[in-house]
């Protein structure tokens, strides 16, 4: 186990370095910079001052190395767009919003999706199954941006049941309702589909048939045998669902103007806010890698046949 963890840790360091290097390279190659020439070109001297101020006059691998060394020490630099604000401060100002949005969405959508999927599997090819399947597909495919638009037009503008955007978790919890529902819908659909498939797989296994043949009741088979074996697929899907929740949905955040990570990141690309882009990618990469690791460890606990090697 400890050797395995060490190995994974080394892999993790390597992955993070590689991802950061690729990101830095892409950023460096992207035209434009953290200065604004939208209306009038910058004066050459002024531009030179800005480039010097941001340290962009050095070769890119030097910039990258400097950034990474500082990052290891917890210093992700200062935002270009928000001068004087530490990237880490900004990040922790934005991230809780994504966490809240994603967390609440997972809280209602994960159980619902799982139940729907299992119910569908148990009623395979019956009307209920088909209704659930179609519902799941519609929620998966309906783009959240389209959904957001129509939901706002109906429930905020016409009916005025909910506020129009204006994310404000502490002051007005009503502002959370629409985004949480819309963000969760996609999860419901994909989870229902996934769970239906997983359940059918389990139900098709020999031990289930054996149990049934032994005369164990259907309900008992489902609860005692099938459900237990569903834990592995649940863990498998929970990883991506969780990371999705943690890293936020750029679309929902964009449309409801929620200052979350997705929104933050899109903004930082538009603004060429290099330290923020780097920090976002690094932090998300770390989260994703850790989730994979935790998922793998969870497998060994749930299914003794799986070994960490």
């Amino acid at each position, binding site marked *: 186990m400890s050797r395995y963890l060490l190995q994974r840790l080394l*892999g993790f360091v*390597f*992955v*993070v370095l*590689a*991802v950061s290097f*690729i*990101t830095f390279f*892409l*950023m460096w*190659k*992207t*035209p434009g910079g953290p200065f604004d020439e939208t209306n009038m070109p910058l004066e050459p001297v002024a531009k030179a001052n800005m480039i010097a101020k941001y340290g962009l006059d050095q070769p890119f691998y030097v910039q990258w190395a400097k950034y990474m060394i500082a990052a290891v020490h917890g210093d992700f630099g200062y935002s270009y767009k928000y001068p004087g604000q530490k990237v880490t401060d900004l990040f922790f100002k934005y991230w809780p919003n994504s966490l809240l949005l994603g967390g609440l969405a997972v809280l209602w959508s994960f159980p619902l999706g799982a139940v729907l999927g299992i119910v569908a599997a148990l009623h*395979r*090819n019956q009307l209920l199954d*088909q209704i659930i*399947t*179609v519902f799941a*597909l*519609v929620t*998966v*495919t*309906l*783009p959240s*941006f*389209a959904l957001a*638009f129509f939901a706002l*037009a109906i429930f905020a503008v016409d009916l005025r049941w909910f506020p129009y955007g204006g994310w404000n978790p502490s002051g007005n919890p009503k502002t959370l309702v629409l985004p949480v529902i819309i963000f969760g819908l996609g999860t419901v659909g994909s989870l229902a*589909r996934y769970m239906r498939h997983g359940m*059918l*797989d389990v*139900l*098709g296994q020999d031990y289930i*048939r054996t149990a049934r043949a032994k005369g164990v009741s259907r309900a008992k088979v489902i609860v005692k045998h099938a459900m237990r074996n569903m834990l592995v697929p649940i863990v498998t899907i929970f990883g991506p669902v969780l990371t999705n929740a943690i*890293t936020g949905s*750029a*679309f929902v955040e*964009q449309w409801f103007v929620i200052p979350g990570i*997705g929104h933050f*990141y*899109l903004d930082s*690309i538009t603004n060429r806010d290099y330290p923020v*882009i780097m920090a*976002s*990618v690094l932090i*998300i*990469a770390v989260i*994703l*890698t850790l989730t*994979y690791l935790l998922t793998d460890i969870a497998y060994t606990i749930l299914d003794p046949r799986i070994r960490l090697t």
Partner: protein
Amino acid sequence: MATVNLARTQKKAAPTEYKVLSPFYLAWRRFRKNKLAILGGVIVFLFLFTGVFAPIISPYPFDKTSIYTFAPPGTLPGHLLGTDDAGRDFLSRLIWGANTSLIVGVTSMTFALLVGIVLGFLAAWYKGTIDFVVNRMLEIVGSMPGLLFQILIMTMIGNGTLNVTFAIAILSWPGMVRLVRAQVLSYKDREFVEASRSLGANTRFIALRHILPNIINPILVSIAFGIPGFMVAEAGLSFLGYGINDPTPSWGKMLGNAGQYVQSFVYLGAYPTALLMIVFIGFSFFGDGVRDALDPSSERTG
């Protein structure tokens, strides 16, 4: 009931039947019975047909503008679905949108397939260093936030059909590599492979004649699910403004562009959304059907 059973037994008893039934025929028989799968198949076929023959069936060129802008469906003779913000025939643009989606979806899929099969096979077959390298590559790409990286890439290389395909394809292959690798690993040490090897077959022969036919089913299924996934990725990027160039239409771009008009001219956003959904659902039904058909074990339950 009894008679039916009897008839079946009798049929099965006929020895000639066994020779005729190839695995694919059996699969087709199972597929045929699945109504949703058939529906999905029809949708997929219509989509492919529309996409391929867009130049022939589209009533107008997709870039032909006119002074009749914002005509809702049915209000302008000769334009069944009306016109868009530049007075272009909306039906023609929707038809051409299928063409764009098809190009992006199929090209990305081809890329993913090629990389997936080659890397997945190499990693599983030779293990060791190659496997190590491939695994690290998988981890790296897996740790990149997909949409965010695609946007970064698009910002760097600029919009365009080829570029958006590139941005999608470059991050699209890990799933396929994992799949192929796992499949090859599970077949590699089977008896028939050993046997073939002991008879002196070379790696290429084994790969093409023995491994590939056995792993083709899950690959087919993942193609059926992958293509609409790539189409939606393109739609999302185009929606955010990083996608296809004008005047080439794409459903995602039409939807993104309609955002500003949606309150007054709902049809501009509704049709592309609906099409995107229908095609996605069609592919899903089709993919589910293909999977169930190719995997008889799943039929045992119910």
